[in-house]
């Protein structure tokens, strides 16, 4: 690792902190020391309680038990403003920007109401913070017009603007490019040099190993282990990862090596797209003459910086978005004419990346959310009438198969952790009758175990001869499972690379606009 950080004294100490939610103990007597001059990585599978812990540190939730000490003195953190005044700045897992305000206004948010926002000096400070990060920030833009990645950048900058002593990043890298992540790492390093403390939550063990000084692992709400700086430095990467995995899952690492599934015998195209074009909208790029074909059992990856039309492509295919021209052929059958339901019945499935926004109905029970796309269809509905018992039973089954962590199938799905909501969606889309499946960022926000499991599932269904379109911003992921990787940029495919040696560099160069 890089040079020696000063092992500081604890800024924040958690003693036996406990937080309960209906049906769940999100944090169970957690002890934690967060020290100045350290990047403290917090790991844990989905639902382990990381975000909840953060929520308490930032004044959003109040602990049900235990105490929080700041500089050794007990301080109940009453409210977010209190947390801020204590010098605790947070980038939350779920976007916390006001879509209808401009970036500048969002950054100014929180100023005392009688003060006028001072745009000029704001611009100056943003510039000086963003530059080293290699981030371009357009203060004038409406947030709703930014891509999720850009929005995450804005949030990081906002957290840095308030020069806080403790900076918390909850899955703040999930939407960044590899380059952006590296720069963020360097920045964290500089910050801790200055004596700040950083809490860094991620699901990517690589990042943990690269950026972390100290690693704590949460499991089912409990702090199950910690790797102090000296040990961290002593271990070399592979060993470290194995150790962490052992802590998190109590077993050896499921192998994440590249294992591209064998292609099914016949490889005539199963899903074929010709000159698909979509009109651009104020807040999204259009698509321009997209063409590709996916054979039986083939996994085609779509690589690209976030916000280059991936979502539009997926929605156009699924029938959610009007295409101006082009045709979609599934198993030799034109399906342009069909609506979302029709395409689904034909076997075309779409797993959205916007779990809370459109993937689920947060207030509905988990059980109903499994079947949201087949409401009214037998056997769960008979002649339009709901058959509660069958639905319950089937829901339990899926919950078991896909290992969804939930108090019960009648729990509102919105209460689950991000990762578990994702499992519900996967269970829904892979349900019987699938022929071609579109995955949009299927593993974003998932912990390692779930990521591996999900990837394996995708390989399996490909193995069963289904066509898979895998949209992801995570190059590693694409390389680890796709047969071919197409690169999307400004709404058109700029090239397709067969997976294999050197594919990574070629894709990478296509992504940054250099012909491969």
């Amino acid at each position: 690792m890089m040079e020696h950080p000063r092992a500081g004294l604890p800024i924040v100490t958690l003693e036996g902190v406990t937080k309960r939610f209906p049906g769940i103990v999100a944090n169970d007597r957690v002890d934690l020391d967060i020290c100045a001059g350290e990047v403290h990585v917090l790991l844990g599978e989905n639902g382990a309680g990381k975000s909840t812990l953060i929520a308490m540190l930032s004044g959003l939730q109040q602990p049900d038990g235990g105490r929080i000490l700041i500089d050794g003195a007990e301080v109940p953190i009453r409210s977010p403003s209190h947390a801020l005044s204590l010098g605790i700045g947070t980038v939350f897992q779920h976007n916390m920007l006001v879509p209808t305000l401009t970036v500048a206004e969002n950054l100014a948010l929180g100023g005392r109401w009688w003060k006028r926002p001072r745009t000029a000096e704001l611009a100056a400070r943003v510039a000086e913070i963003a530059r080293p990060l290699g981030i371009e920030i357009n203060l004038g833009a409406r947030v709703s017009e930014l891509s999720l990645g850009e929005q995450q950048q804005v949030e990081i900058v906002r957290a840095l603007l308030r020069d806080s002593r403790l900076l918390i990043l909850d899955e703040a890298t999930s939407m960044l490019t590899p380059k952006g992540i590296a720069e963020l790492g360097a920045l964290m390093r500089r910050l801790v040099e200055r004596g700040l403390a950083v809490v860094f939550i991620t699901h990517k063990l690589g990042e943990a190993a690269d950026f972390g000084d100290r690693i704590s692992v949460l499991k089912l709400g409990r702090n199950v282990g910690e790797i102090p700086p000296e040990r961290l430095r002593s271990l070399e990467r592979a060993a470290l990862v194995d150790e962490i995995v052992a802590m998190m899952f109590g077993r050896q690492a499921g192998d994440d090596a590249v294992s591209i599934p064998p292609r099914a015998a016949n490889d005539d195209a199963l899903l074929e797209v010709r000159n698909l074009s979509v009109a651009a909208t104020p807040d999204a790029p259009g698509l321009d003459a997209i063409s590709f074909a996916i054979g039986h059992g083939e996994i085609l990856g779509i690589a690209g910086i976030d916000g280059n039309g991936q979502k539009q492509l997926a929605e156009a295919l699924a029938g959610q978005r009007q295409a101006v021209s082009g045709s979609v052929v599934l198993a030799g059958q034109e399906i342009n004419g069909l609506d979302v339901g029709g395409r689904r019945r034909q076997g075309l499935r779409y797993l959205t990346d916007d779990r809370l926004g459109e993937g689920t109905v947060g207030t509905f029970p988990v059980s109903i959310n499994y079947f949201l796309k087949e409401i009214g269809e037998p056997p769960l509905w008979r002649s339009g009438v709901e058959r509660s018992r069958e639905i319950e039973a089937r829901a339990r089954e899926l919950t078991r198969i896909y290992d969804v962590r939930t108090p019960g199938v009648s729990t509102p799905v919105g209460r689950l952790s991000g990762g578990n909501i994702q499992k519900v969606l996967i269970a829904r889309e892979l349900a019987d009758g699938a022929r071609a499946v579109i995955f949009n960022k299927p593993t974003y926000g998932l912990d390692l175990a779930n990521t591996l499991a999900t990837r394996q599932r995708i390989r399996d269904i490909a193995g069963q001869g289904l066509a898979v379109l895998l949209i992801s911003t995570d190059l590693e992921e694409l390389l680890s499972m796709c047969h071919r990787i197409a690169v999307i940029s400004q709404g058109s495919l700029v090239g397709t690379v067969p997976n294999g040696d050197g594919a990574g560099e070629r894709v990478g160069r296509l992504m940054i606009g250099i012909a491969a």
Partner: protein
Amino acid sequence: MSGEAVHVRAAPLDASAGQASRRDLGRRLLITLGPILISLALAGCVLLAVGVDPLAYYGFVVERGLLSPLGLQQTLTRMAPLLFIAAGLIVAFRAGMWNLGGDGQFLLGAVAAAATAPLLVQSLPGWLALLVAFLIATVVVVIWSLVPALLRAYQGVNEIITTLMMSFLGVSLANVLVKLVFLDPGTTVPQTRTLPVGDRLPRLFETTITSGLVFGLAAIVIVHLVMTRTAFGLKLRTVGANPRAAVHAGLNVPLLTVVVFAISAGLIGMGGAIDIIGIHGNVRADWNPAYGLAVIPVVFLARMNGFAAIGFVFLLSVLSIGGESAARRLGVPQHFTLVLVSIVLITLAIAEYLDHRFNQVRRT
């Protein structure tokens, strides 16, 4: 009220909350009767302030609205139109659509029925005439509801505005129709032709209770079952809870929107029709009972649960019938009934909240 029932946007209650009302009735009764007693006390203070004996007043309310056979019959009769309105609102609110145009829709339904029924009975057998008039009224209101429905479905115009406006408009229109189009030539009073008492909906048994009550009950129970037990109901609730998810799930949201408005307004229009062919027999110019406004909160308090709504509608009727009588006997202006009703509504809402809180604490 349960988390999502509180929202203006996401109305629907997930199944579990739906059953909540049936789960341990005792508690529900407590959190219903408790607040009512409290509000009686509060309203009592108002009465004392204006120098009226609260006990006497409430005595009359209970006696005239509930206990005396006559009073009870009046109360039940009053329920008929209210039940239809409640049913209509439940459909709309569960689908997350804010049909605040009840008054206009109610009046138009009433006028349509009053315009057609008296003429039809002359040519058709009684029951058929009523049925036809009833259907005509419904159709008229459904068409009326297309304006806000289409605006919302295809232009994204917020329906709270449109329905509110359409309500103002509908009330005026109803007047115009009565005074200019369907005026009864037989009288100088600006009103429609009158449906003879004999030709109106039969009364139940030997009482003065209109059989409209039966239809009203049927309507609201059916609505409840459809909303909670069928795929159609679930689709509507999905649209209500998260329109984007509905699109993602392949539901035809615009179409469903229009359907929701049609059903909702249609039911409210039926309420108007029932009121005419069952009780009034004609519509007078400038008549507007403004039931819609009173029923909206009731439906919320019932958490859009049909059965609970029946109970609250009954309560509302008792208060209005008994209140009218009591106010008259004690020389209090009728307006006091408004005060009483509103205090009841507010305390009930608070009780709902406290109960909800209590449950949360207990669950964790």
